[in-house]
């Protein structure tokens, strides 16, 4: 078996963040693979809930979109988006939301809207979709994204999905909101958030050192009290991941 790719390291680390979880709001791609891996390992009772309103999918093939027909056939339930976003997500019934982003700042604010100013962007990104309300209403959020000085930035060009504080460090999450981003998984490592809401390096993938992290972050990345060396995925885990992507 060949060594784990960066994507595979991210999938394994993101799956570990779902240990014991029962409801996760997922998108296609890495989060989907991570959630399926978790269901086969650390979260046997996990139900995958898709933005398209599908609950408890058992796809017979890899879904190509969050509205893939293979997600529907054999699912436990379908819901209208009103029920999904109102009764389920806003109702507080989603434990973990998984989000990606083009940019993140030290407070976990996510940008999926524009690079550059909103009125005349240099790159127009897709926008929120459900990300803004997932960031606010899921009980907690796991972010999965690629890390570089272009994505780990300060400040983000636009806050699509709120993190622990405003980009200037002010403010707090509303009292009704979930815990917000509690983990960020990248190809370099895993980050958690300190009691003041600032991101800190908590774990490093095999072969990655502190300097690589600093080179891939546009602000001085804080360190957690203990930084773990993330386990390399076992051959069995790698095999499972490769069946999922």
């Amino acid at each position, binding site marked *: 078996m060949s060594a784990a790719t960066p994507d595979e390291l991210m999938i394994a680390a993101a799956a570990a963040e779902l240990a014991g979880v*029962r*409801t996760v709001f997922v998108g296609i791609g890495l989060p989907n693979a991570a959630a399926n891996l978790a269901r086969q390992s650390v979260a*046997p*009772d996990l*139900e995958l809930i898709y933005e398209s309103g*599908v*609950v*408890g999918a*058992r796809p*017979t*093939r890899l879904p190509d979109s969050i509205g*893939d*027909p*293979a997600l*529907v*056939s*054999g*699912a*436990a*339930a*379908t*819901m209208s988006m009103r*029920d999904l976003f*109102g*009764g*389920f997500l*806003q*109702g*507080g*019934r989603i434990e973990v939301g998984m989000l990606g982003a083009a940019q993140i700042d030290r407070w976990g604010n996510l940008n999926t809207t524009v690079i550059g100013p909103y009125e005349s962007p240099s790159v127009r990104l897709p926008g929120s979709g459900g990300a803004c309300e997932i960031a606010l209403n899921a009980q907690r959020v796991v972010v999965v994204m690629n890390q570089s000085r272009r994505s780990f930035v300060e400040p983000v060009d636009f806050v699509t999905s709120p993190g622990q504080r405003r980009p200037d460090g002010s403010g707090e999450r509303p009292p*009704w909101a979930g815990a917000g981003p509690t983990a960020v998984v990248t190809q370099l490592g895993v980050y958690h958030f300190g009691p003041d809401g600032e991101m800190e390096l908590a774990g490093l993938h095999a072969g990655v050192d502190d300097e690589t992290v600093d080179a891939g972050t546009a602000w001085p990345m804080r360190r957690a009290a203990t930084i773990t060396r993330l386990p390399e995925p076992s051959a069995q885990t790698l095999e499972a991941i490769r069946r999922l992507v």
Partner: protein
Amino acid sequence: MTSKVVSLREAIAANVHDGDTLAIEGFTHLISFAAAHEVIRQGRRDLTLARLTPDLVYDQMVAAGCAAKLVFSWLGNPGVGSLHAIRRAIEAGQLEIEEYSHHGMVARYAAGASRLPFFPLRSYDGSDLAAANPQIRRVSSPYDGEEISVVPPLNPDVTIIHAQRADAEGNVQAWGIVGVQGEAALAARRVIAVVEELVDSSVVRDDPDRTLLPGTVVDAVCVEPFGAHPSFAQGHYDRDNGFYRDWDPVSRDPARLEAWLNEWVRGLDGRAAYVERLGAARVDKLRPDPRPSGSVDYGSYR
């Protein structure tokens, strides 16, 4: 996936506590009399009972002394007349009431289900209902300044619904009139689903659109065939309209009502005994002929 199937006795004991706000919902259809009777048998007290139409199910619970307060929108025995036990309790000052319209109750559950601090609706203007209930308030639209009525969220401690079937994971499927069962369940802290039939997960998963509540929101599944009688379960049995009519003289007379509760609730150990006492003839008479929905094709994608 851990099974959620427990006996109704266990489900009530674990989930319904003195002083709770309880909603046994189902609009005419799928009213869990089985659960109400178990609550009576377990002697729960000081409950706040919420339901659009208190119906016989709450007349019996009030008569049995379970309730301190009633939250409702239409108080009657449909097509027959009054709910006499509830009327006596109100008149005796033993039962507090909080009154809305149907849409007001629907909106309260919807707000509760989606954790909104209020829900707006176009009702109550020019009616005396808002004056009678200070929980009905007004909000101004930030777009045109227009004022609109709002109601507060209703979040039952427990919602109990009846349905035709569920699997052991708690995925509940119902057909026919669903009323506010979905919103009332999503609004609740704990949810008990009582069903006619436990089915294999594959039956549920063959038709995911039929699922009213996914298992993730259901705490207990209890299998109680005929558990909605004298209400009905579409395709399983008819509404027992004779029972509703016959309830009127029983409910009018406290002594007869007490005797009824002793005979049909306290004197029995559960729904199976109730069905046996009803007798095969009465049960059979309520069974409809088949009328299949037909099947649609979801497609198998590989």
